[in-house]
């Protein structure tokens, strides 16, 4: 990463953590913000996809598919933004998807590590178990918006911390002629 990318990563990380803590302290307002973020996220997905088509995929065999995907995603994003009250099903699916997939991947990675005799299997498996637990919680506590806010914020805080850690990681490789 260059200096600008590192600074940007740190600032984003701090913003994400700060916002999340604010949302945890005020969960009712937090829910409104959370639904807004999810809507904007879906909208930006569509915009990104269309941008991706014009910058990259138009050079590709079969690239037009990307344009169609982008337009559908954009329309979906705008439709979601226009909903005055984001249905809970969106939030549940979003949390279920993120945590469920990450949980399964981590557990499988832990099992693979254990087969190879690597000590990292304990960390991977426990990370996976926590993610799966959060995914299950999103189904159990479907009526409690506070729980959604806490789960969402946990994920955002974790991402924010990772961003900050990544910004400080040494990534350059020395070259000796």
């Amino acid at each position, binding site marked *: 990463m260059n200096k600008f990318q590192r600074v940007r990563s740190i600032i984003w990380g701090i913003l994400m953590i700060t916002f999340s803590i604010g949302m945890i302290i005020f969960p009712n307002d937090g829910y409104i913000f959370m639904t807004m973020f999810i809507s904007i996220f879906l909208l930006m997905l569509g915009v990104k996809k269309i941008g991706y088509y014009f910058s990259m995929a138009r050079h590709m*065999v*079969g690239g037009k598919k990307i344009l169609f995907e982008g337009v559908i995603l954009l329309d*979906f994003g705008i*439709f979601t933004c226009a909903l005055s009250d984001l249905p809970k099903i969106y939030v549940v699916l979003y949390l279920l998807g993120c945590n469920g997939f990450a949980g399964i991947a981590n557990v499988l990675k832990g099992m693979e590590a254990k087969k190879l005799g690597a000590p990292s299997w304990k960390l991977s498996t426990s990370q996976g178990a926590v993610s799966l637990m959060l995914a299950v919680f999103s189904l159990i506590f479907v009526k409690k918006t506070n729980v959604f806010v806490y789960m969402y914020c946990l994920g955002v805080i974790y991402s924010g911390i990772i961003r900050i850690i990544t910004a400080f990681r040494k990534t350059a490789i020395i070259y000796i002629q």
Partner: protein
Amino acid sequence: MKDRKRELRKSRSNLVDMGEGVIALSAWTILKFIMFSIFKKAELINLVKDELKGEEYPPFMYELAVIFVDVIVLALMTFIMVITYWIGKSAIKEGKNLKKGIVYVVASVIFVIIYADSVYWGIMNLINGTPSIFDDTASILVDITTLFAFAGLTISAIKVKYLGE
């Protein structure tokens, strides 16, 4: 000769892409309508009330009216979806050199005309001022893309028939 073969491969690939595109866009249109009916029920009821202004009916009548309109529109959309699916599937099969046809190309031309008209009136609507500018802009974007998909499908199908001979 090499260029002709390359052009043929390109046209076949485009035909498959456009075929998949028209199916996906039509399916999305129906899905969006269903989501709109579920999540924006209140807006639909207000629309019906606006249409019947001056007349007072019991609340369940408005809901019934909305359901009635939904069913009619959904039936019409499903019919269009079936035709679009057939056009798309025929295009995909021809693109993969599995089957040839001409009727789907004719149907595609008709859809080009329909969507061109839809886009024109959508833009006119925007110019004349619309309360839901974002929604309408997105709808026009989808219509333009669908028009592009049908037009692309038609052109690719003609190219494939010409180059394949």
